[in-house]
């Protein structure tokens, strides 16, 4: 993201300063900064670094849940995982969810932000309405929608005169989770867009108006290009978050894998392998595979973005 470009500016300055008083600064830096970041480092090490290292190790063993008697089995877990149809199905569900959610949320967040930006009365109320669902815990949001969508007694079907089995039929279950997710998380992207909209200098619009551009032209030629970066960011953040689909899906499906396994996401399948089947080694290997996939998506976006920026200049 923007850190790369900031680094290139700051780095030379830093290098110069470092050369002048390196020893003094390092000592002071440790005395002050070190203690300030120590609590974070401790937790980071305990809950991120150590589990990660341990997970990589376990993925090469046949460790079970009880934590004893594991032996090294090389790449067997990985070999098995790559041939495990259930794993690919679960990955497919996560990917399908991502494909549905990301474009919808981007467009919806943009539209809501435009609305909230241009509306004149009770601005705060609109902002609050669009953002408030994001503040709910995932289980609360999921539980609410579970009630709304339940067949026979749910408000949703009742209101629209439907009898759709949202939560119990495999052709609708994922859609139900997508709807819930849109409602629940659109607020976050909405705020990003709103901030970006407010950051567009007014003189651009004034100049365009003087030149005779209508509202549509102003949006297409000023607003959208000025929001390009934020759109990229929203897209990437949503993609990464959506691939990790888990909590709202299990909560809406009563902690099961959904009708005929149709909403079992990758994370959930990994959890089942580890804690229902007790195969911690195998689950670790799947986690590493997932980690690689997520990292590839994140890196892919970075590379893409850099190429585009360089090409643009």
């Amino acid at each position, binding site marked *: 993201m923007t850190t790369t470009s900031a680094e290139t500016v700051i780095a030379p300055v830093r290098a110069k300063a470092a050369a002048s008083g390196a020893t003094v600064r390092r000592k002071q830096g440790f005395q002050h900064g070190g203690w300030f970041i120590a609590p974070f480092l401790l*937790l980071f090490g305990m*809950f*991120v670094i150590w*589990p*990660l290292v341990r*997970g*990589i190790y*376990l*993925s090469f063993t*046949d460790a*079970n*849940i*009880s*934590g*004893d*008697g594991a032996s090294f089995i090389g790449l067997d877990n990985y070999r098995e995982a790559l041939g495990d149809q259930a794993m690919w199905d679960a990955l497919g569900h996560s990917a399908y969810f991502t494909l549905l959610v990301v474009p919808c949320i981007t467009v919806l967040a943009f539209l809501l932000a435009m609305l909230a930006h241009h509306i004149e009365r009770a601005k705060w109320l609109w902002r609050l309405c669009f953002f408030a669902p994001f503040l709910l815990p995932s289980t609360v949001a999921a539980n609410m929608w579970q009630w709304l969508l*339940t*067949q*026979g*007694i749910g408000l949703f079907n009742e209101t629209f005169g439907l009898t759709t*089995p949202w*939560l*119990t*039929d*495999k052709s609708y279950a994922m859609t139900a989770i997508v709807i819930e997710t849109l409602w629940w998380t659109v607020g976050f992207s909405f705020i990003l867009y709103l901030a970006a909209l407010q950051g567009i200098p007014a003189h651009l619009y004034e100049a365009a108006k003087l030149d005779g551009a209508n509202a549509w032209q102003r949006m297409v030629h000023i607003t959208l290009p000025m929001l390009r970066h934020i759109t990229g960011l929203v897209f990437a953040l949503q993609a*990464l*978050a959506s691939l*990790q689909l888990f909590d709202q899906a299990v909560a809406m499906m009563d902690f*099961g*894998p959904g*009708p*005929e*396994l149709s909403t079992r996401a990758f994370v959930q399948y*990994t959890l*089942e392998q*580890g*804690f*229902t*089947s*007790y*195969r*911690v*080694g*195998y*689950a*670790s290997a799947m*986690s*590493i595979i*997932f*980690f690689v996939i*997520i*990292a590839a998506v*994140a890196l892919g976006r970075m590379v893409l973005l850099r190429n585009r920026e360089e090409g643009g200049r």
Partner: protein
Amino acid sequence: MGIPPLNRRQVLAGLGGAAVAGSLGFATLGTGADALASGADVRVRYWNLFSGGDGANMIAMLDAFRAEHPGIAVKDSTLQWGNPFYTKLAMAAAGDRAPELGVMHLGRVAGFSPGRLLDPWDEALLAKYGVRKADYNPVLWNRGVIDGKLYALPLDIHVQLCFYRKDVLKKADLLGDDGRMIQVTSTDQWFDVLKKARKVQKKGLQTIGLWTNDQNFQWWFFVAFYTQLGGQWFNDDTPANTEVLFDADKATQVLEFFRQHVTDGYVIPGAPTGEQFINGAPFTWEGNWSVPVFSGAKLDYGATPLPPVFGKPATHAESHSFVLPHQANRGGATNEAAHQLAAYIVQHAQQWAAGGHIPAYTPTLSTAAYKKLTPQNEYASAMDHQATEPKVWFAGSTGVLAQDLGPMVVSSTMGSAKPASVAQRMKKELAKLLASKNPMDGTTAAQGGAVA
């Protein structure tokens, strides 16, 4: 496990979790100190998974034990049912921090590495406190026996039942002289009963609740009717569990039977089963744990084991059992107290029966107090007709077997796959499971020797 990059929400959740875990840790320390300070000679730590009505009944039984045995301090901990419970129990047993007494589903015992994570019961000690094999249904008792030793002492069985509304069935003339539902012994008779009930029932409701979308219930029902047909899972002659004896034709029959409820329109897929029953749907198939719910709603209802539509009576049964989690130096007074506590609760399960469960200790079943319980007295016979999963490591309540085969049954009942092809897929999956190794000890079902 390897964790993908954290987002803000996860970090906050993690910190919150750490704080909660920390405070719980202190809380446990506190109560532990209290228990020791109470002046008792022996302390029994007892982990169970009972919440709700079951939890209240269990605590009442523990309190009764405490009142009669002031020398024994019982420190009970209720943990969340399901995988979190089994995970904690396994880790504690492997790390030698296990409690003196625990509870497990009987079907899970074979997969829980008996001998390594579980210690065997001392049958002489149990007999000293009044519990003998003779007091049990022999089939049930033997399910807890592995390699010749008793690893699980059943407290109850809980079975799948056919609940029916007497007020509705009366109108359709489907009640016998004893006020109970008429006997049904074939699928034709069964659908005839449904047809008659539908004519008189409240409109807009389904005729029967079948949990058509629920992989656990559908699996339990499958086990019941497959057993009624005399279907087998694996061979039990030596060497046992080397061959899949699953009969795809019989399985197809069962799956088609389920499917017909949907195609004939007796079921509204996805409709809430218990609620519809309370509102007037004539039938619902549920676990016996729904008894307190329906009794609480003051319904005029009865409950029989699942109807023997394939001739032989059999209904799915699981069992809450006491186990001794492995302790490196198990023995002495604490171990004896654990035996004493388990034996006491097994023998004083009258209160437990109020929760709908059938007490495993058979003398309880013939007491006048139990015989007065309705509808419990109507389905107590299920004790002698238990349909259970095979005794292999991958079986058990919400275990691997149910998790793999349950969704297949659902796909057939819901009509997204043909019964015959689902039966074939089930057979294939069983072969795969039979060849796979128990992650707890690296043995297959055949090598595990988990046969009585």
